[in-house]
């Protein structure tokens, strides 16, 4: 484009010269030559300056001279992120470290300190909300039981699914369906399954699960109702978590299995490996990257369990928040207007997830075959 322009210009110069020659016949040769030279010089300068100019542009881009324009392009995204990501993160830190922070207080007048953290960890928030330690242990119990069990089940189911030939697609669909169901709705269904309707001597139904276990009004297990044991509660949540975690895990593991070269199985058969040896010594190591991915994301997700508990036990997460989780704890204190405690709790949660993930990564680096 620019090259062409330059060429056009030099053409124009020549034309110009022709005209001058025509008009001023008596113009002496010396003068003409001078003019010619200077015009040509100009044109040449113009062409030659193109290359350095382009080079300059590139270098100035590297130096950052064009950043004003670049910022303009990403401005909408940056603005949105500032409002919805960066500001909240900064604000979380501020409110966590401002002693006694509440949304409507002026944070500037409060003093900095770790008191929010201390009170959260000690459990003396003085407002009668959820207890952090209990929420922490609940969350750990939910996560570290349900994620491994669910992953193992998903592994066995996908191995079975992979080995059947008829109706494979149909089963695949059935196993994936729960993934598309709303968590709160599933929680409500689970609550119904475990619910005992009626009080004292006038029990109307002990719930489907008790019926399946052969329990009656005399010896039913109180899963979720008033006066139920915390481990019964936790058991229900864990079953729910195992079940709801299956579809995604099966989907991932099934496709990982389908990608395993069939020849490894043939080789193992010739080598006299039993079915279980093939599963544990060949299949599992070969899909271990996917297993580790599922464990890591599963644990990260498990640390954030909340909706399931609300679906099963209502917003009070039991009678007095006794089935509460760490995320439940945050919501609880935000609701109470105790943003300082919520922020401190969320930073603790952040730290815990980070430590667990680092351990995960360290372990998987040693044990996973990539």
């Amino acid at each position, binding site marked *: 484009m620019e090259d062409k322009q330059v060429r056009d210009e030099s053409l124009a110069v020549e034309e110009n010269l022709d005209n001058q020659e025509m008009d001023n016949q008596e113009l002496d040769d010396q003068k003409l030559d001078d003019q010619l030279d200077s015009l040509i010089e100009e044109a040449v300068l113009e062409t030659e300056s193109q290359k350095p100019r382009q080079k300059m542009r590139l270098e100035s881009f590297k130096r950052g001279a064009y950043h004003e324009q670049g910022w303009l392009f990403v401005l909408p995204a940056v603005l949105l992120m500032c409002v919805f990501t960066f500001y909240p993160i900064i604000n979380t830190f501020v409110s966590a470290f401002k002693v006694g922070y509440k949304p409507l207080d002026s944070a500037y007048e409060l003093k900095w300190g770790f008191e929010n953290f201390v009170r959260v960890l000690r459990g003396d928030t003085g407002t009668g909300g959820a207890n952090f330690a209990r929420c922490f242990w609940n969350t750990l119990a939910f996560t570290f039981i349900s994620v491994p069990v669910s992953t193992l089940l998903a592994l066995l189911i996908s191995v079975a699914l992979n080995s059947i030939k008829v109706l494979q697609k149909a089963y695949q669909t059935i196993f994936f369906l729960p993934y598309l169901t709303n968590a709160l709705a599933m929680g409500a269904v689970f609550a119904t399954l475990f619910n005992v309707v009626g009080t004292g001597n006038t029990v109307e139904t002990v719930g489907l699960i008790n019926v399946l276990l052969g329990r009656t009004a005399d010896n039913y297990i109180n899963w979720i109702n008033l006066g139920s044991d915390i481990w019964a509660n936790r058991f229900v949540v864990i079953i729910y978590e195992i079940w709801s975690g299956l579809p995604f895990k099966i989907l991932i593991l099934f496709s990982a299995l389908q990608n395993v070269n069939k020849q*490894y199985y*043939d*080789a193992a*058969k*010739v080598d*006299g490996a039993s079915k279980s040896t093939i599963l544990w010594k*060949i299949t599992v190591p070969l899909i271990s990257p996917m297993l580790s991915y599922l464990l890591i994301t599963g644990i990260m997700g498990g640390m954030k369990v909340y909706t399931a508990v609300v679906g099963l036990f209502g917003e009070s997460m039991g009678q007095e928040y006794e089935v509460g989780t760490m995320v439940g704890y945050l919501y609880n204190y935000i609701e109470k207007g105790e943003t300082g405690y919520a922020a401190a709790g969320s930073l603790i949660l952040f730290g815990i997830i980070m430590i667990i993930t680092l351990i995960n990564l360290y372990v998987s680096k040693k044990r996973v*075959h990539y």
Partner: protein
Amino acid sequence: MRISIENLTKIFPSRHKAGENVTAVNDMCIEIPSGKLVGLLGPSGCGKSTTLFMLSGLEKPTSGHIIFEDEDVTTLAPEKRGIGLVFQNYALYPHMTVEQNIMFPLVNMRLPKEEARQRALEAAELVQIEELLTRKPSELSGGQQQRVAIARALVKMPNVLLLDEPLSNLDARLRLQTREEIKRIQRATGITTVFVTHDQEEAMSICDQMVVMKLGVVQQMGEPQEIYDNPNNLFVANFLGTPPINIFKGKVENGGIYIGDEKVGETNVGDQEVFIGIRPEGFIYDPMGALTVNVQNVEVMGRDKTVVSTHPSSTKPTIRSIIDSDIKLPKDALQLKFNIKPNKLFLFNAETEERIYDGR
């Protein structure tokens, strides 16, 4: 261990309802003598791997029998057959070290760990990879992986060793070297070995016996030289030898073999249309020779030279004739004349492409 294959047939049902079934192996009957290296040779897709997998027990035959010595193993599970199998792309377990790979069959046999380790080391020494034992397969070259695969197959001291195109993933130089190696290992162990390949040179160079297959059907079995010198049909003649045999359309008339109007030999078979196969080394330069060809160029290889020429009756675009480098050819001749060595000339039926044997 002697292996008898009796009327072995494998039909793969079609995946689609409308499609045709594939007959991968068709009524195969062969005897594999004990302690020999036998090559299964044929073009890609002719059923060599399928035959091998049926021998290993990984594929079930549609019909027919496989007999090891005197035992019918047709329905026996792979691990009970006492075979070692080397896959075309080795199928080494990528998550195990070389040692773990080699030990895997022994661990499955519940051998004590120390004994398993000792035997793995011996197998590794046999294929000369003992210094690689701690590596993972991904840290090995193709040739090394191949040795590991052979060691894994040999470590359980199988009665039969099955190799599926073991050299096809190696570069040309390594291929030459490794095929000698396979021959050496086979000799050293005396294990009956079946070796699958599509490369006739490979098969000819190391096999004691060779089975040539085409579209699932055995064409010929015998010692390599014997098959080369006496091909059963046009396919076998064509498949063996580099450069390949030259084939002409011709006829037999009154005991003379004619290519066009030129009489290139004599026979006592009846008058008929025939395909005439002449090996490249079957040409003798003679200014008064019987067959006239139009010269394209002469390739000088040092040891010998190849005349590349054309002929209107040739079924291939060019004819290759190998002659001694001492023989002086007229410079820039457009045409050359050759006599044909009778033992390098074969007649084939023009329709069935079966060999027509001279009655003499």
